[in-house]
């Protein structure tokens, strides 16, 4: 059984490999209930992989992934799909269904998982769209939406079933300042208003730090550090400091490993 009810998600000794390449090695992460937790790290460090492990879209090579009191990798395929009804994910691309309009996209989880009457589905969809400020866009198709609107509709769909856990995969990437500000505010607002647990995977430092209650910094297949945004900002760990202050060079080198300069430029081989 899960050790502690205070946590919505617990990764215990999780390792994950792609082929022979190790992505995570014995990682422990605990996501407290009702809080916004950021998972940060440089691009390519496996943040999205971590999110997919939490949603059991990937199976760890070792360790346990507990979500809402269930060890997801041990569930059968059908139980896993049942467990996911209590989770919502905002994908980086929005991942709206391109053959459905905004209304039907948001109504989709309600239609497949409930037998609510049409009037009630309509009311719920409009409420969710109102929450993200897009009630007026109800008849638009996904290809008529801007990137920011696309993500807000996806967010409305993610909260349609009132999930206990909401996960965001790089929500701020490619957004203009206004759309980014709207999303930042929405993530915090939804978390507090709906009383859910939020996990924000991002490398956008300022935005994530402004809404997260707690942050994990991952890199090199491990958790490099954890704490509140303020604690991490004043960390002595050079890896954390480099990431939090955005220094181009440091423990993570600016240059990709290469042969010596004179070998390339002066022909000394």
């Amino acid at each position, binding site marked *: 059984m899960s050790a502690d009810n205070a946590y919505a998600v617990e990764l215990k000794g999780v390792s994950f490999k792609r082929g022979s390449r190790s992505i995570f090695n014995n990682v422990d992460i605990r996501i407290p209930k009702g809080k916004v937790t950021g998972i940060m790290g440089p691009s390519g460090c496996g943040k999205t992989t971590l999110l*997919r492990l939490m*949603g059991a*879209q990937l199976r760890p090579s070792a360790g346990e992934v507990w979500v809402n009191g269930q060890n997801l990798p041990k569930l059968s*395929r*059908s139980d896993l*799909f*049942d*467990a*996911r*009804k209590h*989770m*919502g*994910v905002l*994908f*980086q*691309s929005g*991942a*709206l*269904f*391109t053959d459905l309009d905004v209304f039907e996209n948001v109504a*989709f*989880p309600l*239609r*497949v*998982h409930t037998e609510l009457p049409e009037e009630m589905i309509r009311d719920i969809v409009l409420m969710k769209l109102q929450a993200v400020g897009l009630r007026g866009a109800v008849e638009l198709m996904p290809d008529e939406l801007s990137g920011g609107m696309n993500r807000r509709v*996806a967010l409305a*769909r993610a909260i349609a*079933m009132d999930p206990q856990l909401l996960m965001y995969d790089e929500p701020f990437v490619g957004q203009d300042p206004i759309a980014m500000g709207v999303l930042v505010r929405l993530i915090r607002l939804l978390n507090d208003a709906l009383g859910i647990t939020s996990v924000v995977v991002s490398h956008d430092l300022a935005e994530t730090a402004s809404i997260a209650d707690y942050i994990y910094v991952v890199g090199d297949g491990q958790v490099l550090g954890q704490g509140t945004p303020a604690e991490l900002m004043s960390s002595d760990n050079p890896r954390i400091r480099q990431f939090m202050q955005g220094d181009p060079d440091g423990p993570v080198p600016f240059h990709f490993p290469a042969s010596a300069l004179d070998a390339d430029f002066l022909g000394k081989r």
Partner: protein
Amino acid sequence: MRRKTLTDRVALFGHSAIEAVAILGRSTLFLLHSLFGRSSTGGGFQLLVKQLYSVGVMSLAIVVVSGMFIGMVLALQGFSILTKYGSEQAVGQMVALTLLRELGPVVTALLFAGRAGSALTAEIGNMKSTEQLSSLEMIGVDPLKYIVAPRLWAGFISLPVLALIFSVVGIWGGSWVAVDWLGVYSGSFWANMQNSVTFNTDVLNGVIKSLVFAFVVTWIAVFQGYDCEPTSEGISRATTKTVVYASLAVLGLDFILTALMFGDF
């Protein structure tokens, strides 16, 4: 570049063989889950009808036009050959048997692979690359049941019907060329056809062939889409693979089925 030694070649062969077995295993599990896995969502019939339209009805035009031209060409060729032996009255029989036993199932399956099969692969591949499949999974909907299964069933149902339509239109095209254009006596055209075509040997065997082709072509198409690398290049490669693998599978299986059905051994 280092020359490959014999050991390298053996290792490469072994690696390819392991990969082929792994793909076969993955595609079999994929098929079993899609067809027989538990579905927690309703609306299966509506999804099937939608796919029957997009896979079957939308393929009608190409099948009808191709069937008509192939029937017409068969009648022309048959007439020019049979005239040499004074047997031009048998052209109806030749057109019908060729279409029902061979060309109906085979050409329809090849056209189906090119038109509907490639579309299925590209559609599912694109859903994968835009994270729509992942999104379905995280909404708690199994994409194998919601996306793949209706497409599989639609392919299984559509192709045999399309093959029958192909044969019927082909026979009509053949009669138009032979009877109305080349002047073959319509009584002998249709009577010879009626006397020589039997339901079990010709029509039923043709339907069995197209059922087998439907199964293989649709399976290859949906699996290639689901298993593709989620990039533009990956989708393009998967679409090409669908057409190539499905066409080769249809032609190879046609030989085996023909040998079993008409081989007399």
